[in-house]
């Protein structure tokens, strides 16, 4: 679990560094947001069930998280942010269209921040394991 959370942390931190210049790094910021969210979702699954989805279709991971929420009586609203990001992974990575700074990039940042906030609040075990930034 720590490996996946740490990977998510790294993607998030890198996203924030690059976000200083969105004009230049918008694509990277959006894609890092997607990967940060996917890794954090994996960390949640591993912390709570000991397994994570290995399906290449990341929407399957969202479904697994939804089932986890149902089994724990957790409001799954935060998963909408993950779904939004996962649904755009291919477009952000390989799409032919130039990303819009507001509709795509800033929304990706917002969605990953909201998803992470929701995940930490509802799955405190991922926030409390081996805490360090140094």
């Amino acid at each position, binding site marked *: 679990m720590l490996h996946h959370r740490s990977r998510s942390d790294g993607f*998030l931190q890198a996203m924030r560094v690059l976000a200083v210049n969105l004009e230049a790094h918008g694509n990277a910021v959006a894609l890092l947001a997607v990967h940060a969210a996917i890794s954090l979702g994996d960390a949640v699954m591993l912390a709570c069930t000991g397994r994570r989805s290995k399906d290449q279709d990341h929407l399957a991971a969202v479904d697994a998280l939804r089932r986890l929420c149902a089994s724990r009586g957790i409001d799954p609203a935060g998963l909408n942010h993950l779904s939004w990001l996962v649904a755009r992974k291919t477009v952000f990575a390989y799409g032919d269209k130039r990303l819009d700074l507001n509709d795509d990039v800033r929304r990706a940042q917002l969605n990953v921040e*909201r998803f*992470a*906030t929701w995940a*930490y609040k509802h799955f405190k075990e*991922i*926030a*409390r394991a081996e805490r360090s930034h*140094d």
Partner: protein
Amino acid sequence: MTETQRLYERAKEPVSQCMIRRLLLPSVYWDAPWPTPDRQVDLLVVDRAGVGDVHIVEIKRRAADAIKAIPQVMAIPAQYKWIAFYADTLDRKTESAIAKRKMLFPDKGPGCVGVIAIERTTGSAMEARILVPAERFPGSYDEELQLFSATHKPDISFE
């Protein structure tokens, strides 16, 4: 409000931004009654959406006053403890004491008090930067945090 008080109040924002850059989606409380209602810390910053590690920051106008406050800061329950002051008040003696770091460590056990300097940048803007990174002190504050967050709203959060 005196100029010193004004500078003290204005320091909260740049120091908060400095912590936000360092941590992951933290919840930031200003003038927080922590750990009990009868005591107050200038900044209480809780990592990972308010459920992770507890950081406290003691802000002083002058560097020498921040150094003097270290024993009190050490006594505040938190995993990470910081002092912050205006960089333009840093004299040679205080700078040397910080460089030696001895007073930043507790007498026993792990941990190191972190040091943040607040600098005035262009115009009247301010920026805080870390001179010495804090190191983890022992302890777990999950129950205290649960009680605290049930009754207090953060001044800055990512929800």
